[in-house]
């Protein structure tokens, strides 16, 4: 079995994002970038399945500018066998990414495709489901547990009401939740070894996919700030304020 894992380079989750003064986006210059957190879970899961003997190969793919390669290198350092970087500059929407991934799936013929359930930059939560639609594959989104069976997957999904369990055939798409596993760290020797693993570069334009944005970004602004609050010195004062000032209890 072969598993394709899609990873995205985003602003690190610990960075306090700042909006550009001209309203065109957020500041990314000199800002720490990392792999989108649930994409790390997707890689980890694929590598674990390979280690259990149920998969032979893990391929990591990313779509983005040159520096997006860093996320593929990181995936290679934690156990992926091969990397693919589809180069495209500028804003690229989930619909275009899923069309690019569709081409990669047609070329690589994986049995499973994993990715994070949501990217923490645009918070769209679309790509996995869109790819599943384009391929007419089943989708198992927000996965917190994946069991690989003979010819199927049993996936536990985190939904608003609690947990849902579904069975999908193979091939299928799984989008991963942060609780799926504990991603490992790359060791220095493995980071060095990863530099020797194959990383194929493809230009998005060569795949014949229209990546032009369909959504016009008119402006990006700071959200309204909350008024500064106060510190209270005792529980009694807190309850008094909630009752008489805020009038919420």
């Amino acid at each position, binding site marked *: 079995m072969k598993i394709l894992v899609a990873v995205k380079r985003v602003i690190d989750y610990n960075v*306090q994002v700042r909006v550009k003064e001209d309203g065109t986006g957020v500041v990314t210059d000199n800002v720490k970038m990392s792999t989108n957190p649930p994409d790390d879970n997707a890689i980890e899961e694929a590598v674990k399945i390979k280690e259990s003997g149920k998969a032979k190969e893990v391929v990591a793919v990313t779509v983005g500018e040159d520096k997006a390669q860093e996320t593929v290198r990181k995936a290679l350092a934690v156990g992926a066998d091969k990397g693919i970087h589809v180069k495209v500059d500028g804003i690229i929407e989930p619909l275009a990414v899923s069309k690019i991934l569709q081409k990669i799936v047609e070329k690589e013929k994986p049995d499973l495709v994993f990715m994070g359930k949501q990217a923490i930059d645009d918070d769209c939560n679309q790509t996995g489901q869109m790819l599943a639609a384009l391929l007419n594959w089943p989708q198992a989104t927000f996965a917190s547990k994946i069991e690989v069976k003979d010819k199927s997957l049993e996936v536990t999904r985190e939904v608003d009401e609690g947990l849902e369990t579904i069975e999908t055939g193979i091939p299928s798409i799984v989008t991963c939740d942060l609780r799926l596993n504990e991603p490992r760290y790359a060791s220095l020797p493995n980071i060095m070894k990863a530099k020797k693993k194959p990383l194929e570069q493809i230009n998005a334009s060569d795949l014949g996919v229209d990546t032009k944005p369909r959504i016009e970004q008119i402006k990006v602004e700071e959200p309204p700030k909350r008024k500064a609050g106060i510190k209270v010195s005792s529980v009694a004062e807190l309850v008094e304020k909630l009752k008489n000032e805020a009038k919420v209890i």
Partner: protein
Amino acid sequence: MSALLIAEHNNKEVKPFTYNAITAASQIDQDLHVLVIGHSCDGVAKSISEIPNVKKVIQVDDKIYENYLPENFTSAVIKNSENYSQIVCSANTFGKNLMPRIAALLDTSQVSDIIKVISADTFLRPIYAGNAFATVKSTDAKKCITIRPTSFDPAPTSGGSAEIAKGEKGEASTLTKFIKREEVKSDRPELGTARVVISGGRGMGSGDNFKLITAIADKLNAAIGASRAAVDAGYITNDHQVGQTGKVVVPDLYIAVGISGAIQHLAGMKESKIIVAINKDGEAPIFSVADYGLEADLFEALPQFLDELNKLNTIQK
């Protein structure tokens, strides 16, 4: 052209967020039709037909829709969406799972999780865990939009009498098999719609200690939330998680206990009307969004809080 809202329900009852989604969708287009896909869901279709904002209900009823599998829903939505310029759904796990599958097949770039309707094609949506707001304009002829339910008031539930028409069924898919759903049953208000939410974080120290929170929630008729750290640690189940990858809540009163206030948690609660933080670390980022901060050991503060509440006899329910 009109807007088509996909209703969320459990075949018996309309899910509360459908009412919020109806408000949003009718701001996009007043000629709002609602698609009810399900199994033996006549009651749901009838309830929705009584919402004054709704002009028409289209019901697609079949056994294959019992468990809302997106592989089946998608085809039914597409078959019934021909005459609509906007397809709308809540941005909760139901809509997040379903809408992109529809959008991709319609070759539409979806606009996710909008918090404001500016015009029929222009919307406000949070990005970067709510640290920036983007105004975006969709240029697709047919638009797919998911709305953040807590940013819109629920529509009134009665007074209307829309026509209920039968819709066309989609193709049945065998790609996915539903096995089970483990719903956490509770008599408490739902997290997403509760007037008061009290949440615990890693500082709670154990699942057992959540009983301190439960006692106060009982008193205030509050829903119980949690930070991701508390869920990851196994103190409480995932359906309680508030944050960027959990639920977004906008109660009148949000009480954060033993929660440091990571960006990802703030994303799920910082629009609450009044925020209270109880934390022994005076430097915790949660205090930067709190209207009332109490720097204290939660194990002392919570029992005192309960005592003080018990002294009051006028708690609003």
